[in-house]
């Protein structure tokens, strides 16, 4: 396999690589807008690391991290997932229950097709 990556290497490292990559992102507060550089540095790992940064943490080559990451991304990417889009929006939107109202539906005309998840008249 490319760059000496083996199945065993994938099995060992995929979870940590996936977790540290851009595929999983966490933000606490609003440090970038607030230019809180200490907090930005503190949150770097959660905000998604580059292959180089992950490699430095776990002791692989950046190229190896890239191979493992792409392998896992492909595994998680479901080709048929976008079919869900075919049944969203439009009429489907008007039939959506109001969140928090235990399945209660709203008068479709009231919302003009815009989602009904908040308490205001568009």
């Amino acid at each position, binding site marked *: 396999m490319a760059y000496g990556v083996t199945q065993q290497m994938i099995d060992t490292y995929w979870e940590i690589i*996936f977790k540290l*990559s*851009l*595929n*999983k*992102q*966490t*933000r*606490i*507060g*609003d440090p*970038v*807008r*607030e*230019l809180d*550089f200490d907090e*930005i540095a503190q949150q770097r790992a959660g905000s*998604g*690391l*580059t*292959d*180089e*940064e992950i490699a430095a943490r776990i002791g692989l080559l950046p190229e190896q991290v*890239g191979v493992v*990451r*792409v392998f896992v*991304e*492909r595994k*998680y*990417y*479901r*080709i*048929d*997932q*976008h*079919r*869900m*889009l*075919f*049944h*969203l*929006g*439009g*009429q*489907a*939107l008007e039939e*959506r229950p109001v*969140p*928090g109202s235990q399945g209660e539906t709203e008068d479709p005309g009231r919302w*003009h*097709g*815009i*989602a009904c*998840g*908040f*308490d*205001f008249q*568009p």
Partner: protein
Amino acid sequence: MPKRHNRFLGYTCYPLTELRNGQVIPMTEAIDSALAKQAMIAYCTKKGALAFGVADVDTLEKIAPKGHGPRDMLPRVKSVISIGVGGGTKGAWAADAKTLAYIGDTETTAYRIAYGLAFMIEREYGAQAIFCPPDMDPEKGARTPMQSLKLHAEIAGIGARSMAGDILLHPEFGMMYYASVFTELEIPADVPMEDNPCPHPSCVKLYKKSGKTPCMQFCPVDCISGTIDEAGKVAEMHYDAHACATMSQQYEAIPNMLLDMMDAQDPIERGMAVHSPENQLIWYKLSIGAGELLSLCYECMRVCPITQTALMADPVARGRGMRQKVAEAEAQAYAELDVEADQGD
């Protein structure tokens, strides 16, 4: 500074160099950068941009990961300009998702304006400029951008991160598409927005009631989660970009389609891997260059009150607002004329 006819370039522009004490000085040092910024804002606004901001390069360099700062792309960059354009019509948001996937995306408008701006800067000010490619790093695959346009826009003060996977929102314009220009001309930088419009008060109310905001509730793949604190601010935001990618980055499906074809156990399965209705559509989009292979899913923004109700998010209201501004400016001008006339009498 007056423009001069440049006989080498063949048109009138600001001089590219100046002779000072016998030395040829690049004109970029003599340009009034505040005026240049105003001219750039006027250019972008005329071309259809809603927002314009300049990000401080040193700040970007501090935050961007190694290899992805502006200087990695243009070593002598002095200013990073971010522009934002609006989305589709109000009706587009009410359409079904299949339709919205085709018509919701206006990012190419932002790219066109930014591309033009780079040429405008070189022509008018003689400073090198590039349209920052909004694309993926060719060494890193489909999910690692060369630059974060989001970071540029946020530092330039024309968007703030939302609960919806950090999609930037603007209090006046809602959701915008962004593009960036890098230039060696130094122009005054802006600062990030003072407040974050997300979460909207109605989202906070809903969160208190149900534990979810609309974007969390309606994400078809549950890629957004988080918490809101007592002050009504985002305390934590979690975004599963890999789940979002299955809905919004259809270009990633192509290699998987090819693998499905190779792995197919019989001719029917192989045929469907190529010709199933959904897969045929990918070939259709590729061959005619229409229909997006990315940004297909807008469900979080469809239910976002900031995107849907921001004062200038609706293009028609925007037009009305501009007409109102023109009318007010005219009235003001007439009033001033009247005063001058009275004084003349």
